[in-house]
């Protein structure tokens, strides 16, 4: 994985020292909150309902065991013993004291982590496929490009005060596991007919108040032009993006208001001027960054299949977990393992310090020290020998992380919502917990099959509800929580926004409504190969409306 060089170390340490001084001056009353707030936000420090919140970047979701242990240490020492993994491959601590944050940042810097650009109107943490570097279906590892983008965008003088925040995601496979079409820039790494690497470039996707699917503005951008083309896009946005209205300031609105053809023409013109500049990436530089991401040397472990067959016969729980939580690896002796952070009735994405330590140990013993954070709020061990799966599973059982639900109805994304978030209108987590408890039965979950439920506590859509197969949005109506349901969204290579299905449901009704939707699907699917999304796309909303609202739907 990427290692800080001297410059990176000096830069991050200098930033910690600077923030320490700013915090001291704030606590001494030398600067006001108005002066301090933009400074703390630039360092990932928010104020929420109960306390400050510190958001830590996990670049392209890649963590080492050492880093995970440090997160555990921080959770234990400065927080309340746990952390929360988010849909942007970040980690949030929900209880740090402002006075302690400089110490926390110093400890993070010692393991090559920071919280820079996890807030503010700048280019945020670049996200990537959580199976990057391991997935059998990948054209190439997207992370070297994400790292190049990270270096380029860190404290970029021209792009530190954009009209609004800016999010970039990169995927390296046809199967889009990074939801690139709902990002400000989405990059799909691919090969052209000549076998050269480059990107399909998508612009102007995003969720939130005005959800939009990104437009493809380039089918193939040669890899050496990654930075010049992104610079061209950012320049057009920085110049023309709206600064008069916060709600219209994202690039998606600019794309929409300008029109894709015109915007593409502007970007291409800017690109023409930049393409032979110093932003053009020398082949040697790309390959040099690539070496940081070279997969570990994977010794042959052909004994895996025999070992697995025997243990799966003896242990049904293990067999179930094998069915759900593995992903095909490039090397047939190995797999990628999803560690579900969605135990039945648990808080999606939360992890205790002890669990963090235990997963760090597991990664150390069985997975070449590598851990990934997925945008679906789970963890991944990207390289595990099939022969070691039973040992990994047994340990996961001991630490309560062996839930065999990856991709199933209880693998729910939920934002922190009104339990923590100062912007929330309604709670998300308790809804996720209740749905999880309702569908706890493993056989029933597997009978239902792949189904993504995503829940947000307000229109900002951190829980990606628009792209949930079933999306749930919490709103406040007459002082009470109300949940709006959307159906048919998806955040993959066939990205679609869900349809609002009808009037919302109260906190006591929402779980029943979800169950009604699921039962309607089960009753109408062609067979169990037709998953929820496929069935919804075939059937449309009508039968679901009918089931939810009955005669009310007919009258409307």
């Amino acid at each position: 994985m990427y290692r800080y060089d001297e410059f990176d170390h000096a830069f991050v340490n200098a930033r910690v020292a600077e923030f320490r001084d700013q915090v001291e001056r704030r606590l001494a009353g030398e600067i006001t909150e108005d002066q301090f707030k933009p400074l703390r936000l630039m360092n990932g420090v928010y104020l929420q309902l109960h306390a400050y919140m510190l958001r830590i970047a996990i670049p392209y979701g890649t963590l080492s065991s050492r880093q995970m242990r440090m997160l555990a240490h921080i959770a234990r020492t400065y927080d309340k013993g746990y952390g929360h993994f988010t849909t942007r491959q970040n980690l949030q601590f929900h209880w740090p004291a402002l006075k302690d944050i400089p110490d926390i940042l110093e400890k993070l810097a010692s393991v090559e982590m920071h919280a820079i650009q996890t807030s503010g109107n700048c280019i945020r943490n670049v996200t990537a496929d959580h199976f990057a570097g391991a997935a059998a279906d990948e054209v190439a590892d997207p992370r070297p490009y994400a790292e190049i983008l990270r270096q380029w965008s860190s404290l970029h003088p021209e792009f530190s005060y954009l009209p609004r925040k800016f999010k970039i995601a990169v995927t390296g496979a046809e199967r889009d596991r990074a939801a690139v079409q709902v990002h400000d820039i989405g990059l799909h790494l691919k090969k052209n007919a000549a076998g050269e690497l480059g990107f399909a470039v998508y612009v102007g996707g995003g969720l939130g108040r005005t959800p939009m699917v990104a437009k493809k503005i380039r089918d193939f951008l040669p890899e050496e032009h990654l930075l010049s083309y992104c610079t061209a896009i950012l320049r057009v946005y920085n110049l023309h993006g709206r600064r008069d209205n916060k709600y219209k300031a994202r690039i998606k609105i600019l794309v929409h208001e300008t029109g894709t053809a015109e915007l593409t023409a502007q970007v291409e013109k800017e690109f023409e001027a930049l393409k032979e500049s110093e932003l053009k990436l020398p082949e040697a530089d790309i390959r040099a960054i690539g070496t940081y991401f070279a997969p570990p040397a994977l010794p042959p472990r052909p004994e895996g299949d025999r070992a697995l067959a025997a243990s799966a016969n003896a242990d049904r729980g293990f067999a179930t977990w094998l069915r759900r939580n593995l992903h095909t690896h490039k090397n047939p002796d190995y797999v990628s393992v999803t560690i579900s952070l969605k135990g039945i009735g648990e808080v999606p994405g939360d992890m205790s310090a002890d669990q963090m330590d235990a997963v760090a140990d597991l990664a150390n013993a069985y997975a070449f020290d590598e851990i990934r954070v997925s945008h679906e709020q789970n963890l991944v061990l990207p390289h595990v020998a099939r022969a070691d799966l039973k040992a990994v599973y047994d340990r996961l059982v001991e630490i309560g992380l062996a839930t065999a639900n990856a991709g199933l109805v209880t693998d729910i994304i939920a934002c922190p919502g009104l339990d923590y978030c100062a912007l929330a209108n309604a709670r998300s987590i308790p809804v996720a917990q209740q749905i999880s408890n309702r569908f706890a039965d493993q056989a029933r979950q597997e009978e239902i099959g792949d189904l993504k439920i995503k829940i947000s506590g307000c229109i900002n859509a951190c829980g990606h509800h628009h792209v949930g197969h079933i999306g749930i949005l919490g709103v406040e109506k007459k002082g009470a929580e109300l949940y709006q349901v959307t159906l048919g969204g998806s955040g993959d290579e066939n990205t679609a926004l869900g349809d609002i299905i009808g009037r919302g449901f109260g906190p006591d009704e929402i779980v029943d409504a979800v169950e009604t939707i699921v039962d309607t699907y089960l009753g109408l699917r062609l067979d169990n190969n037709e998953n929820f999304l496929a069935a919804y796309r075939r059937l449309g909303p009508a039968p679901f409306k009918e089931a939810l609202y009955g005669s009310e739907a007919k009258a409307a």
Partner: protein
Amino acid sequence: MKLLAANRLIDGVAVWLGQGGRWVEDIAEAEIVRDKEGEARLEQAGREAVAKNQVLDVELIDVEIVDGAVRPLRLRERIRAAGPSIHPELGKQAKKPAASLV
């Protein structure tokens, strides 16, 4: 009926303005006002506390008295007064289970 809510600067903990200008960690100890003069007095005290860098995000919130206990009207403020509804062992409700107001 209103009282004044804020977060403490040094650690972000939710606090309310109590008697004698003291910021208290338990909403039960907050000073409740019932008229415009009272509200103006709380707001003035809030501005002064912000200027003295004791608290931030000061806000007057609506409350009612239910069975002798103060209860914010908005769920947001009830969760703030108690702690995350999903973690009864965390936040203010941990020290004082009765604080669970959701």
